[in-house]
């Protein structure tokens, strides 16, 4: 890209997480945007600080310490914008935020399996917890429904239902119940309302709810017709409503919003925006997957040629909701990932104790191992829930498998802080259990959402930063679907390097095979499956492909799909240690 097309402005990106506030500086170097440096500090949305600005300033001070650039004014301690002739300040600020309690949400739709499902998927695109649902099959009287809404004290109500120009009478009844419930709540606690139903009723919605909702936004219908679901316009409006809600709930958000000139987005929304953008840019035919594990939520964003499936799951976050993960999984399902010999009771107490102190980090190896096991199960669950919302074109060949994808990008504390790139990769392989052949990237500085927010100021910035190597290439993973006994050879692989040398490997079922290929290099990988194994080219099909290297090189995961772990705990732990050793320990 010609340098003249790049606006020469420096951008400070701020991400306020539930535990950590990160800041990153992007600037133009030799005509192209580069990630310069990052700083971080504990987040301060919670008591005793109760003002996100404290953590933001501390993170910026840490960044100043790294870069030597003055970003905060000495007089007012505010971000200096635009940049000054003396080199201080930045030209623009963008921000994302995931800190804050889960958004208590009531969803309403007409048909439980149509519009209500759309409302649920829309709610899942942000940091929400559904506290009540209303639909036509609801057997409660209208006054019982409104009592239930009042008691659940929602922050947000999402109303969907009716195709454009379709049913209106039932919808109006529902609007009345929601309007009355809003009316009965104290003014400062009235929920924000998003209406994304039959567009013909927009005027009625304004009349019935406009005076009673905390804030009312009307978006295009998520179900313009029975066959079509279009969440994107409504999710844009929802992102802005959630930002407004955070401005009402948390001190310092207003200030950040103003500093970012309104470019403040929910973190997951910004992550999703990046994935949609990248899937279009790289014309991904099979899809890109991005996962992020944070204290507030686990987020799964999948882009399929410009179409986005975004799922935000506070119930699978590794912070204050951790104790509640047992409402979604059996403790034995977490225990299966455990490399330590501990009791399920010890694990249970660990979960609840950690939820008391969400911002704390593991201090010992044992604690770290327990957190890694929990993270595996949380991500496993999040991906399985998210997979249900993938478009029909991206369905897997079998219900118990993931669809084939083109690229995976992973970020968030639990993944990036695994201890080594190998451990991060193993966590992803265990939890996601991908199939086929795809490169894995590690977003160790959590830049993905920041780039999504920065895209509002410069379309070039995200592309140039990613192409400059801001993410760590973990390697190219070949995941094999096979049915064999442990130790039987299921694949012969040959990697031909650019310098004409070759490495050959007989890959045995149940193991992980690593073939070195440094970052930045490509090589020709020939795969010859045995026993009708599928190494990404089809069952029993051989072939050769060009692959890119990474920190680990080429990783052949021959443990089978889905991954079946031995029931015997001793044998299972032994295998896990072996796998861990295979990726570098």
């Amino acid at each position, binding site marked *: 890209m010609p340098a003249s097309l790049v606006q020469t402005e420096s951008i400070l990106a701020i991400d306020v997480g539930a535990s950590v506030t990160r800041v990153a500086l992007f600037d133009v170097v030799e005509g192209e945007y580069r990630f310069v440096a990052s700083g971080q500090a*504990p987040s301060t949305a919670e008591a*005793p600080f109760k003002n996100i600005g404290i953590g933001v300033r501390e993170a910026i001070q840490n960044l100043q310490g790294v870069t030597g650039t003055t970003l905060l004014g000495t007089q007012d301690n505010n971000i200096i914008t635009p940049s000054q002739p003396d080199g201080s300040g930045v030209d623009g600020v963008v921000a994302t935020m995931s800190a804050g309690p889960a958004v208590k949400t009531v969803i309403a739709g007409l048909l439980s399996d149509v519009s209500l499902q759309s409302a649920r998927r829309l709610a899942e695109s942000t940091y929400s917890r559904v506290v009540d649902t209303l639909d036509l099959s609801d057997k409660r009287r209208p006054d019982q429904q409104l009592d239930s809404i009042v008691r659940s004290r929602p922050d947000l109500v999402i109303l969907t239902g009716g195709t454009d120009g379709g049913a209106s009478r039932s919808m109006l009844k529902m609007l009345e119940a929601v309007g009355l419930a809003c009316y009965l709540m104290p003014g400062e606690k009235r929920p924000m309302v998003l209406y994304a139903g039959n567009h013909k009723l927009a005027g009625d919605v304004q009349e019935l709810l406009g005076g009673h909702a905390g804030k009312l936004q009307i978006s295009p219908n998520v179900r313009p017709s029975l066959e079509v679901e279009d969440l994107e316009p409504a999710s844009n409006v929802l992102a802005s409503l959630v930002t407004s809600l955070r401005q009402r709930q948390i001190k310092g958000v207003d200030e950040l919003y103003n500093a970012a000139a309104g470019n403040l987005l929910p973190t997951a929304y910004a992550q999703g925006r990046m994935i949609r953008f990248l899937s279009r840019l790289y014309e991904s035919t099979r899809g890109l997957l991005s996962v992020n594990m944070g204290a507030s939520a686990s987020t799964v964003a999948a882009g399929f040629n410009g179409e986005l499936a975004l799922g935000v799951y506070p119930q699978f976050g590794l912070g204050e909701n951790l104790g509640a993960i047992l409402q979604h999984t059996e403790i034995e399902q977490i225990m299966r990932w455990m490399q330590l010999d501990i009791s399920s009771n010890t694990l249970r*107490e660990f979960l609840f104790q950690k939820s008391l102190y969400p911002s704390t*980090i593991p201090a010992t190896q044992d604690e770290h191992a327990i957190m890694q096991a929990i993270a595996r199960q949380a991500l496993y669950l999040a991906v399985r829930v998210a997979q249900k919302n993938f478009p029909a074109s991206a369905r897997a060949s079998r219900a118990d498998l993931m669809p084939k994808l083109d690229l995976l990008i992973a970020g968030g504390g639990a993944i990036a802080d695994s201890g080594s790139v190998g451990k991060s990769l193993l966590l992803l392989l265990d939890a996601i259990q991908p199939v086929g052949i795809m490169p894995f990237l590690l977003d160790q500085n959590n830049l993905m959402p920041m780039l999504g927010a920065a895209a509002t100021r410069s379309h070039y910035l995200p592309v140039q930063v990613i192409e400059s190597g801001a993410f760590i290439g973990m390697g190219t993973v070949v995941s094999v679907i096979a049915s064999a006994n442990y130790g039987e050879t299921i694949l012969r692989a040959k990697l031909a390097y650019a310098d004409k040398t070759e490495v050959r490997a007989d890959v045995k079922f149940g193991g992980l095979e690593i073939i070195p290929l440094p970052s930045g290099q490509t090589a020709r990988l020939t795969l010859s499956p045995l026993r009708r194994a599928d190494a990404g080219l089809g069952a029993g099909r051989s072939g050769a492909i060009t692959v890119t290297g990474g920190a680990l090189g080429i990783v052949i995961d021959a443990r089978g799909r889905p991954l079946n772990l031995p029931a015997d705990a001793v044998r299972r732990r032994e295998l896990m240690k072996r796998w861990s050793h295979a990726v570098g320990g």
Partner: protein
Amino acid sequence: MLAPVLHILPLVTIVRERLLPVAGKVNAHLNQRVSPTDVIAEANFAREHALIDVARTFNVPVKLADRMIKVNERDRVAQGALVAESGGMFSRSIRAPRAGRVMVAGGGQILMEVGDAKIELRAGLPGVVAQIIPEKGVVIRTAGALIQGVWGNGRIDNGSMISLIEKPDDVLTAERLDVSVRGSVILGGHVRDADTLRAAADVPVRGLILSSMYSSLLQLAYQMKYPILVLDGFGAMPMNSAAFKLLTTNDKRDATVNAEHFDRYNGNRPEVIIPLPVTNEPDEPNSYDTFAAGQIVRMKRPPHAGMIGSIANLRPGLSDLPSGLRAAAADVRLENGETVIAPLVNLEVVG
């Protein structure tokens, strides 16, 4: 780096808001001295609502239905009272299904508040009313010992505190809870079974202050009518030495156990208040500080969770931890003389 502060203080000025969940009437007045059981505010609120669809019942347009409604907003109506009448030769009527108050009368409907309930808000702690918050409650100011915990079952009560703990890792069992502790606040150790919680309810006690309990008891703990306050956490954790010393030295004194839920956003957390007489009012505690060498700290995570120590040295930059992670850290000298490295995010200043 900024440090959250855990209050375990022998004498401090304590200022606490006591608020109704809904708007009501404040009975207390400014500078009034209150005892824990004084009702300082009260409110009536409707548990439920009744929606009467006049237009639909009479099968008439909304505008016509509005003319048939015989009650006005804010009217109090008795059960069976006439609320709407169609008129004409074959007049039909609608009567109030329950006694209540009309909230909305219009749009062809009547919305009534029904099922009135009364809330009485007690002071909860002895002190002086320092501020009236109209229709909501009061701010009470008192002086005494303040000990904060990590979990509470949402209840509050007060009484004479009896210590049933001899050493920090003691286990409180049902056998220790007999008639001699009736009406008291019990200072116990770790609770490991449901029988202990049930025995405390049977006695009954006015509250349990525990070092720790098993998380499997959470559901039952929420059902108990008396306050349960956990100081250190879940599992089998001994009581932190700072709280142990302070609480055991206040044996037999009146204590308020406010076992409210730990709300990490508004800062409310479960706490024990032991009011003490003072001649000069002590300072209010700071809610946060900056980490510095010499500070007394409590460890929040294993392997030394709940232990008290002092910061021997703040390490510059980021340090490698035994877990393999890198973080800002300090060397902490524990009470047993051992010095350990701890990430700052795993510490809270005691003060």
